[in-house]
């Protein structure tokens, strides 16, 4: 009886654990099934490197280069914001903050992570964009720069908490050894702690990138939405996620446009998938190097 119960529990929990796999497979299958038909109508080369996105015209043009570049453009911008902010705060939290400061700062960062993205989007659209427009005297505040700024702030908690974890994994003995050799706090931090936590910090940055490139609501509201190859940071842009979100609702099912949006989703998925794999590989390799293998 007891054994049977154990077996049942085991069965239930493995079903739950494997359900993730089912969802992932399902999503991948749907993406391929709905996305690939577009290449019957548009050549892969023209799709990826075409400079014009006019899906509803006759004849339509399905060039997603402006959308891909826009996604990378705002993601790089976001990194410029979130890497110094996130890693700087992680270092402070882990190395310098007193117990009390940590007690206040850490939950604050976590709250920042829990704000819904539409709230960020709304803030960017209603407050930040008009403010930057006046401050920088740019024609319009809804542009890649504003989007990068908002995305950067959104990705900061991700970067900060993962980097902080990585720093806390650095064994005490490393620091003690460094101090024992006469190194001061700064030298220990720069020469010992940061290199030791390097993998975790890289992982943090990559996952931050992943977060920024996949973010939808904020870029839809703040980036301006112009499907043009960006020439400056103050150009309005249309990242892949924003294009999908804005167009999916009004696209006839089964049309080339519909399949094209799925193909964009497939590309987006591949990009974040690669990011996540790289992050995983880096963290695994370095953990082993440090003797912290799981």
């Amino acid at each position: 009886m007891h054994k049977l119960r154990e077996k049942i529990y085991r069965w239930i929990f493995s079903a739950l654990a494997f359900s993730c796999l089912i969802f992932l497979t399902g999503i991948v299958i749907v993406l391929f099934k709905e996305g690939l038909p577009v290449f019957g109508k548009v050549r892969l080369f023209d799709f990826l490197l075409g400079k014009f996105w006019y899906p509803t015209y006759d004849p339509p043009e399905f060039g997603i280069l402006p959308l891909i570049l826009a996604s990378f453009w705002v993601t790089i911008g976001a990194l410029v914001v979130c890497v110094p902010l996130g890693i700087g705060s992680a270092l402070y939290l882990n190395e310098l903050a007193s117990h009390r400061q940590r007690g206040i700062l850490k939950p604050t960062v976590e709250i920042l992570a829990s704000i819904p993205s539409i709230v960020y989007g709304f803030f960017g659209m209603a407050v930040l964009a008009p403010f930057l427009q006046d401050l920088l005297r740019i024609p319009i505040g809804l542009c890649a720069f504003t989007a990068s700024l908002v995305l950067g702030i959104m990705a900061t908690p991700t970067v900060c908490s993962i980097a902080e974890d990585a720093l806390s994994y650095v064994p005490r003995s490393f620091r003690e050894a460094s101090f024992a050799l006469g190194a001061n706090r700064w030298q220990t931090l720069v020469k010992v702690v940061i290199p030791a936590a390097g993998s975790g910090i890289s992982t943090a940055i990559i996952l931050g990138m992943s977060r920024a490139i996949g973010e939808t609501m904020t870029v839809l509201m703040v980036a301006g939405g112009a499907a043009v190859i960006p020439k400056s940071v103050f150009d309005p842009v249309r990242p892949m996620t924003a294009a999908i979100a804005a167009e999916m609702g009004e696209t006839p099912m089964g049309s080339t446009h519909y399949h094209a949006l799925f193909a964009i989703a497939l590309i987006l998925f591949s990009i974040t998938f690669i990011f996540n794999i790289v992050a995983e590989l880096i963290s695994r390799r370095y953990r082993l190097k440090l003797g912290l293998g799981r």
Partner: protein
Amino acid sequence: MRSTMKLVLLAALVFGLALPCYAEKIVIEGSTTVLPIAQKTAEVFMQKNPGANISVRGGGSSVGIASLIDKTCDIADASRAIKDTEMEKAVAVGVDPKAHIVALDGIAVIVNPANSVSALTRQQIKDIFTGKISNWDEVGGSGGKIVAVSRDTSSGTFEAFGELVLKGAKVRPDAIMQASNQAVASTVSRTPGAIGYVGLGYMSSGVKALEVDGVMPSKETVLSTKYPVTRPLFMYTNGQPQGMVKEFLDFVKGAEGQKLVEGLGFVGLK
């Protein structure tokens, strides 16, 4: 006691399943511009007439008219009049399309209230949105880069603007694309150099409507079709509507239906 309850439940189930079969079914298909009108009016109509069962689909004006000709829909929504070629096809299979105007679509071209420009021609608006003109001093303004604000290319408002003003030309790729009329209006109201366009129902005090070809957009000028960026929206039926289809169209064209139409940002018929 128990068996009576079972019987009642069974009866309820059978009745509940059977009921929709007896309801008169109306299929509406066509223009995505007319889609919100069809959806909203069908929803209210079904609440008032529990016997009615209306299914509404988008797909575009051409799709709707093709379905009407194939007799797979009862009402075809269209944001344009039927084409001669379509009429010929219909006549060939014995279908007699009848047009019913259900609303008017008037699109106001708006700028920031601080802008000194107050009138443009359709040609100038077209040149602005296609990228030929990119500074306000080229159209009599006080200078400064023009920020063109457009609706997303899959929206009905974009479709109407594209047809009536751009005449099929492509909108400049660097135009700001907004997902709703509301967003276009609020962007224009906050951006001194912006120009955009919204359905007449979305005008607000934060933006200034321009005269187009010398006519100010208003309910009156749209109704009289003097205002050039105006188009009627149709529902087509096969022959004179009868039964539930007639009741539905009367409802849409009546006072209550037209109130719903105005609530959606279109111009009502009265």
